[in-house]
């Protein structure tokens, strides 16, 4: 194809584009989303030698601009309104949001027809030298865009533009866009809540540390002696942590409660508890030379200190969760709701969406004849600590732990877990998360059941949060996620 034929084809495609837009924009501006993606972005990228992307995908839709190229610092506003008011409003917003710090150039692509002229004085006053703008050059419509293409010398480039345009305006492509538009038009108008599974933590500001002052020899002998009697695993190496545990337990008789929110490193004990406080049991295990360090300074020292900090935070959370009856199960690396001395079903009260509600946390599973309990299903969760943008977060993933008697892991745990996970969909996992997240967090005081926290430092777990998100899914428009089958009664068996 020679240059003239190519240009004629481009002109025809642009005319079809304009016609399609005119029909489509009768519905709403949201149509731009699809047309921009398929037609305008590739076209403008080719003509302007840029790499635009759709700014409307940003969570908070970028104000005043639709298509952006951060690298080349260029932005486009795509609109079907050609009035000076629209131009001025956009520029005003652009300046208000200091978009000129990100973009040197702002173009308007008028999908209909631009005005014959725009009052440049009023625009210049608005712009106030923040960036350069020439209405003739920076406001484009189909006709001026075509003129710009006509000026391109490189025939290969014109060929690419022609190919890209003609392929977008086949009957099939136009039909496809119509189909997709129906989905996006509806979805973009709404938003829905999306919850994060991580809770923000306010960490204690100070870490106390001091050299250990314990009778290692004596403690070792006691542990070995007990292990010899068959209490505990014989072959296990005695760690520094074992020694400190033994030392704390030796004070039990004085009415002190065992605590686990500390770590040992290089013969030093680190904790958020005030080691200078004589009433603090841990103070009895260290020398009088107690030192303090700012928590932030501690973990920012290096990767090694960060690991120690994460470890301390994890042990402190274990202490906190234990108070809320979620016990740490080392073998399964998870927290599960603790059974009482006599294992049985447990329901606890909590506040769900400002209403008092009951939540089952331990379920019994009986045999067919209801003669005996086969196993217990405990609500459980795994955690990971994360630090981003200077803040600490606790990520929580709900799961289940299966025991034969409330304590011992059931032999069929894995099968039960696979079975139940096959039946659970997003809603039920979210419900588990929301319960656990609310139950563990401190900021909402409605939950008075667990307000008797005893840790003498301020480690605050904040409530679950959400963000608004679109597009939305209308679940009822889709087929149910799972068909109810006759063998799907497993969940009920547990109730």
């Amino acid at each position, binding site marked *: 194809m020679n240059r003239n034929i190519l240009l004629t084809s481009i002109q025809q495609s642009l005319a079809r584009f304009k016609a399609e837009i005119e029909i489509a924009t009768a519905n709403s501006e949201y149509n731009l989303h699809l047309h921009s993606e398929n037609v305008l972005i590739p076209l403008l*990228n080719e003509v302007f030698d840029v*790499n635009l992307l759709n700014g409307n*995908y940003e969570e908070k839709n970028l104000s005043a601009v639709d298509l952006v190229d951060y690298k080349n610092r260029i932005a486009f506003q795509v609109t079907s309104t050609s009035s000076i008011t629209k131009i001025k409003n956009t520029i005003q917003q652009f300046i208000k949001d200091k978009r000129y710090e990100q973009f040197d150039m702002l173009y308007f692509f008028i999908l209909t027809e631009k005005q014959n002229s725009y009052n440049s004085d009023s625009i210049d006053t608005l712009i106030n030298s923040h960036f350069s703008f020439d209405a003739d050059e920076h406001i484009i419509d189909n006709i001026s865009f075509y003129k710009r293409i006509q000026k391109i010398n490189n025939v290969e480039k014109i060929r690419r533009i022609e190919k890209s345009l003609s392929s977008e305006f086949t009957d099939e492509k136009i039909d496809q866009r119509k189909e997709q538009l129906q989905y996006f038009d509806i979805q973009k108008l709404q938003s829905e809540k999306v919850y994060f599974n991580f809770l923000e933590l306010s960490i204690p500001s100070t870490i106390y540390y001091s050299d250990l002052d314990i009778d290692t020899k004596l403690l070792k002998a006691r542990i070995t002696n007990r292990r010899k009697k068959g209490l505990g695993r014989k072959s296990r190496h005695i760690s520094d942590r074992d020694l400190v545990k033994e030392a704390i337990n030796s004070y039990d008789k004085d009415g002190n409660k065992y605590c686990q929110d500390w770590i040992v490193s290089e013969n030093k004990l680190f904790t958020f508890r005030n080691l200078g406080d004589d009433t603090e049991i841990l103070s009895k295990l260290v020398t009088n030379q107690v030192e303090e360090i700012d928590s932030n300074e501690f973990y920012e020292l290096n990767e090694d200190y960060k690991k120690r900090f994460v470890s301390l935070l994890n042990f402190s959370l274990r202490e906190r969760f234990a108070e809320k009856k979620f016990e740490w199960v080392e073998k399964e690396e998870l927290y599960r709701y603790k059974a009482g001395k006599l294992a049985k079903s447990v329901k606890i009260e909590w506040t769900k969406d400002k209403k008092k509600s009951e939540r089952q946390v331990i379920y019994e599973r009986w045999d067919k004849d209801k003669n005996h309990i086969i196993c217990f299903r405990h609500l459980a969760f795994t955690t*990971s600590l*994360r630090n981003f943008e200077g803040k600490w977060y606790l990520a929580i993933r709900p799961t289940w732990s299966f025991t034969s008697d409330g304590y011992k892991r059931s032999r069929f745990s894995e099968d039960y877990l696979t079975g139940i996970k096959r039946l659970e*969909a997003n809603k039920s996992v*979210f419900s588990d998360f929301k319960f656990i997240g609310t139950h563990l967090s401190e900021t909402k005081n409605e939950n008075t059941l667990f307000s008797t926290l005893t840790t003498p430092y301020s480690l605050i777990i904040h409530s679950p949060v959400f963000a608004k998100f679109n597009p939305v899914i209308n*679940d009822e428009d*889709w087929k149910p996620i799972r068909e109810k089958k006759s063998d799907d009664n497993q969940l009920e068996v547990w109730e």
Partner: protein
Amino acid sequence: MNLRYIKEPLLEFGRGGRFECPRQGIYNFAPYDIDKQVRPEKINVGIIGRSDSVDEVLDWLKNCRDKVVAPVQRQAKHPKLYPNFCGFNKDNGFYSELAFDETYTKKINNSDFDKIIKEYNNLEDRITEVADLYLSHIKFLSKNKRPDVIICVLPEKLVPLLNQQVDLKKDSEDILDDLQDSLEDEGNSEREQNFRSLLKAKSMQYNVPIQIIRDRITKPSGEMQDPSTIAWNIFTALYYKASGIPWAMVKSSNIVCYAGIGFYKSRDRQTTQTSVAQIFNELGKGVILRGGEVTIKRNDRTPHLTESQAYEILDNALTEYKEAIGTIPPQRLVLHKTSNFNDAEIAGFEAAAINKHGVGALDLVTINERSGIRLFRENDYPVLRGTHLRLSKENHVLYTRGSVPFYETYTGQYIPNPIEIRLFRHDENPDIICDEILALTKMNWNNTQFDRRLPITIECARNVGAILKYMNDSDPMQLKYSFYM
């Protein structure tokens, strides 16, 4: 921290067509290379297998020339997830046809299989013997007939016997009941045993890609994929293995290459691991290379390359890429790895890509499969595939599995597990890097259902490693991915 939605990436098909679904894309627009001078208009296939299995598969291949209808119930529920297969013929869809005749067919006697099963109780020996049976025929066909692809048909009853140690005193029905039916299972032996990997590894020397097909695909049971999905997947793989390009990523304005670095353990599961790299462009054309061995340290179980190993593997990969693909070096290179990058690796990769090969922009990206982060909607369907959570400039979470508007469903069980993306060095905008990762999940020609979890860079590294571990250093290895998938 904020959320955004990445719309389902479009793929590029023939005649300039773009669409989000590979199947409908091929059906509407033909494969990407339809207008290219060289493409597999006719695919000569060789077929090897037990006599009755081969006949069954031949009939199936013939039937697939015409439309293969998806099960009515599944299609009524999710029409776009279960489209009919368009038929593999020269008049529509792939616009290509299979060619085979008796001279391209090698039948193995039942008694040959029976003899091996009887004589070799040891799994490793049995796998080796069965593989040798196929290999002798692969050698013959490749030397005398030069087919484009060789289909190795595996009788269903043989599959459990190639999987793990079994008690042969039990009768065969019990054996079938007892065993897992996956060929991918590693078994319990000291050395890993995998028939598929062994056959692919040892057949590489004959320069013809192979396609292993289990004869049960001709009559799929309820728990298997449906007949039309099986046809879509197998014919797409055959077209790709015959050097066709079924679809491509939508090209960016720059020449971009994607590379994946992986590590694989030796079959005896020793503490050393070998590195492997592949590098390819938007069309999926590229090369695969084996790198140096790395030793796993006690205090850090993550394999890391030394600076010189990182330099060497990327330098070799880029050099081979240039020779094989015949283009100038990429303007931008994106490197994916499943573990974090340490300083030595960053220095090595930078030196090779930027200093030696003049790559303009380099992105070093870790793709972590085990993110503790989850997002929840309040309803039954999970969040959308394409949900992108920016945790910070360098840390991102991307849902590559999730609810898919095009299919109007979520195709997984339980809740989707997103991948976590860490940028250790990046020249490109993080959003674009995430967009590309989502697009790369669709570049797997073994599967036409597009909501895959991992980008092909990582999947490829894994598949290649699984096969390379069955090769000796002296065995000739192929550079093309079609020999590993």
